[in-house]
């Protein structure tokens, strides 16, 4: 039983990591209807920039601030160069543009900082919490808990931003209806730049968490693929969906890996999450918390 709890807890905490990446997707999709495939490479770009700056002897907080600034600039540049000319194009064109953006971002970050993998330390060791493992014999990583805490804070901040501030109201208005928002005088372009910058910040946080766990390397770009089932399960438009979806995917993936994996030869984590998400979709085609679409002829 303790083993089962340990597996589920580990899965839930891994799910939080997925949710961190999925959050970035949700933010951009909500506000601009763009499915930003480049989120994975933004995570990579942010983590690589941060770790390269700290390795050059920069102060941790200074590096964080500079990277955040870089992500804001990146968001504005993307809005300006890629999105603005593509307004009113079908979603698949926008998706392809962000895949093109993936190539550019990966190329730029490796050109700037080199392609060798880096280790990342934030001062929180990735070791099991002692009193938990002594008392109940359950191993849960201290760092995972920290990541979960960070994700919680992030979601709370985003929720306040979306619900309580002037910018948040504008964001929700844009998400609801571009044209109506424009008509009441909301500057669409500013809002998009803000959203992309926010997504850049989320990417930075996700990059740091994933970087500590797996090292900062090219494989970070694949975190996007981990986040996709989370997204379709939770629904593209819902921040809450990203979190809940992440938890469901993380837990079920871990449980399946441990209890089902040995029977089918292992390695099932590459597709199991997708199948789980697919099963949920068959019941709720727009994800758990996605907006219901009414088809009109």
């Amino acid at each position, binding site marked *: 039983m303790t083993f089962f709890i340990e597996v589920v807890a580990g899965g839930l905490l891994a799910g939080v990591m997925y949710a961190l990446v999925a959050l970035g997707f949700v933010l951009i999709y909500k506000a601009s209807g763009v499915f930003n495939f480049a989120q994975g490479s933004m995570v990579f770009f942010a983590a690589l920039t941060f770790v390269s700056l700290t390795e050059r002897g920069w102060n941790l907080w200074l590096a964080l601030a500079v990277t955040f600034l870089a992500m804001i600039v990146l968001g504005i540049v993307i809005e300006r160069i*890629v999105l603005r000319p*593509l307004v009113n194009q079908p979603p698949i064109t926008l998706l392809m543009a962000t895949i093109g*953006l993936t190539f550019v971002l990966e190329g730029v970050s490796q050109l700037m900082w080199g392609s060798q993998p880096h280790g990342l330390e934030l001062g929180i060791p990735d070791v099991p919490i002692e009193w938990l493992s002594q008392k109940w014999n359950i191993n849960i990583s201290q760092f995972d808990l920290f990541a979960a805490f960070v994700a919680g804070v992030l979601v709370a901040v985003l929720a306040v931003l979306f619900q309580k501030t002037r910018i948040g109201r504008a964001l929700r208005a844009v998400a609801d209806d571009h044209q109506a928002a424009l008509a009441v005088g909301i500057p669409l372009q500013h809002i998009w730049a803000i959203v992309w910058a926010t997504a850049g910040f989320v990417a930075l946080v996700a990059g740091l968490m994933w970087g500590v766990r797996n090292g900062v390397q090219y494989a970070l770009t694949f975190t996007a693929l981990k986040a996709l*089932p989370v997204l379709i399960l939770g629904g593209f438009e819902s921040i809450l969906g990203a979190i809940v979806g992440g938890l469901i995917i993380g837990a079920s993936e871990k449980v399946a890996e441990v209890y089902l994996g040995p029977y089918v030869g292992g390695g099932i984590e590459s597709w199991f999450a997708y199948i789980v*998400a*697919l099963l949920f*979709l068959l019941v709720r*085609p727009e994800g758990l918390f996605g907006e219901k679409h009414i088809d009109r002829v």
Partner: protein
Amino acid sequence: MLYREAGQFKSTYSQDQQIFPILQDRIGVLALLVVAFVVVPLVGDQYWLSALITPFLILALATLGLNILTGYAGQLSLGTAAFMGVGAFMTYNAMLRIPHMPILGAFVIGGLCAAAVGIVFGLPSLRIKGLYLAVATLACQFFVLWALNRVGWFSNHSSSGVITAQRIEMLGYGVDTPAAKYLLTLAIVAVMALAAKNLMRSETGRAFMAIRDMDVAASVVGIPMMKTKLLAFAISSFYCGVAGALYAYTYLGTVEPEAFTLDLSFRVLFMVIIGGAGSILGSFLGAGFITLFPIFLNLASRWLENALGIELPHAVVSNSEAIIFGGLIIFFLIVEPNGLARLWQITKEKLRLWPFPH
């Protein structure tokens, strides 16, 4: 002046409905076929045939397949490479396990197996749409790749999962030289492209396009949603499956499941978008562009190195190439979202009037 349809009268319905109603188009296509079937194998050297033109044709076939699904029927799929993988591995097994199997029959079996997989993974399309469906088709991509890797039967229990394509023999002649392989590929691609062109002009094709444009409206006017969507998946995966089989048999020779990763799916999707969604010609243009462009970039970077007299580090070159490639795709999407096929159409309209302005 040369490209005018004035004076070409159509007196029967079938003349009006032919694929190339303009005489100059017919001559052009015929000339293109002659060049492709006769001139290219004669003048093309081994490298060009086996490393450039054959893969271009194969990828064009896969693009055609995806174009039927995405461009005509409007169902976004990211599982193309998986269907290609199924085609390649099942063709291999058909050749291996069925005695005296003709190669074309094996290709058909590979394609049919891919079509079956396509139908299974097309089932969610009845419930989910758009980007949700795109992500759902990723399930197919990862699951099929995993199955090909893990289930030994597919690769005849080879330890590394690699299969080696059997020697192709047709009517007693071995298809061994690059030129022969090229001709086989070309013949299959040409026939299948013609079939696709005709299919898209038929009732089935019109049903696909109705579903693409608005599926609720299509079902209201009586187009069977389930049958049509699954048919689109089946036909599309059949094309991809045959392309995968050709990929293994006439291009690579030895394949492992890792040849059919998500990257390949994306490349084929790029070809569809760059070439023009919903266009048979566009599939070829897009495949040609994406296949040739990296080679062109590579030549350009080498030329640059020679011109400057310095040796650039490999990492710099490959990263710059990625940046230029991605940047160019974005640029293309911005200036011509309807793809190269649309550019060709505009050129044709200009040609009709040339050299007069109106």
